[in-house]
């Protein structure tokens, strides 16, 4: 599944997840509900990196220049990728933003929902807990 970085380089979802527990959000700059969760996602990204997990945002259907300008303006520090031709969202069968996914260290989708909420966080915490148990 090919994705783009903000500077236009190609990457894949597999490379981006890289065996880490990941909270993935599909979003767009025009989406009001996505804007509401920018700060919570920033907090989650900062705190989850300490336990080896990550937050990954994938913008759908927009140009790298537009998304890069938005990311700069809002000082978003967590990883950002692009799905400009809806390849990933089509593969996931998702036509709504925001969509939140929790992916475990093995690349399995454990949770899928809309906006970031308590259920998504519970699944994310659960996946982190499982990864720690597996490490031990």
């Amino acid at each position, binding site marked *: 599944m090919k994705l783009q970085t903000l500077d236009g380089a190609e990457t894949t979802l597999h490379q981006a997840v890289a065996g880490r527990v990941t909270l993935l959000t599909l979003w767009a700059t025009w989406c009001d509900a996505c804007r509401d969760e920018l700060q919570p996602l920033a*907090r*989650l990204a900062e*705190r*989850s990196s300490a336990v080896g997990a990550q937050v990954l945002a994938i913008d759908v259907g927009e140009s790298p220049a537009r998304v890069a300008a938005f990311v700069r303006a809002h000082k978003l520090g967590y990883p950002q990728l692009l799905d400009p031709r809806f390849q990933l969202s089509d593969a996931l069968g998702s*036509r709504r933003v925001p969509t939140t996914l929790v992916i475990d260290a093995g690349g399995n989708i454990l949770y899928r929902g809309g*906006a*970031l909420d308590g259920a998504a*966080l519970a699944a*994310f915490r659960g996946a982190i807990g499982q990864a720690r148990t597996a490490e031990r």
Partner: protein
Amino acid sequence: MALLTALVGAGRARADGADPLSDAAILGRSPGIRVESVRVRFTQLDQAGTGYQSQAGPPEGPGSQQLVVSTPQAELVVKQGRKLSYRLEVPFDIVTAASPDAVDIVSSSSKRNEAGSIDLTTTYQSAPETAVFLRGAFHLEENFRSWTLGAGVTHAMADDNAVLSASLNEVIDWFDTYDVHGVPQGHVWRTSSNANLGLTQLLSPTTVAHVGYGGTLQRRNLGVTWNSVPLLGGGLGPELLPEVRHRHALLGRIVQALPWRGTLKQSYRLYLDSWGIVGNTLETQLYQRLGRGAYVRGLYRLHHQSAADFFTTRAAPGLEHRTADSDLDGFTAHSYGAKLVLVGSTPSVREVTFDLGFERYHRSNDLRASLYSCGLSLLF
């Protein structure tokens, strides 16, 4: 036991609060009240023409329908928390008429008339796919009061590819009544009960279709009360309208994104009512982006309607119902217009939109109007 449970509960709460990934630590408190958008608009309608219901002319008609309406309006959208939003609209109408009505002859009350409304819609997002709303409105003008109550629901289906909407509205109008000589006759009222059903469906990544139905039942005094009708034997008589009117409207619309950064909206509306009017309206709108921060919209609308069964410009005596109102006549109308929209942003305002528009309306039974508008919208 209860004390033990409380202590354990408090301990859990402290543990949850200390967890850097807890719901409270990440999601924070529910956001308070914040302004989402502010819009202001000014619209001016200049109307000219003649109609047989107007007494501003020879006794046998038709009389002038010259009219100027200036409408400043404001809209404020406020969000409370994550699920509640409020939209407040406050339009004003300042009407300057050339004396189209008998009431002007005596009181001149409609030569210049100010009117205002307050319209509040509260929307609750009960689920990611479902929103319910309640609407309340009040309209006030010199000899007219109107109250509106409404409720509705929108429900998204199939990953937002389809949206179903339904709404109910009840309007009560209470107003002064005059005879054709402008003599006050007390107060009358009417009710309008309205139901709407709509389905919007994404047909392709660039095509959206919408179908809708609206039905309205109106009862009691359905005229403006002072409209006159020229009589066959000379002189003027009052307009006599049925006390019930069933109205039905079917709407179909398709929106297609075009490869050259444009969008085409095409719609058709069929209107039928129990007074015998059948209306067909075709409308085309073309949006064309001119660059990053500007687009233009062109509009053409064709409307044709048949006359009400009891429309006449020379009423025979003894008719149960009669009207000479040009709006209830059969006619063909053309509207065309253009709008220029400029879009920008600032660090504190997500989107600033300014628009300038013009629309020209003319119809076959001698009515012409020009509509000028400008608006400013701030999205935060």
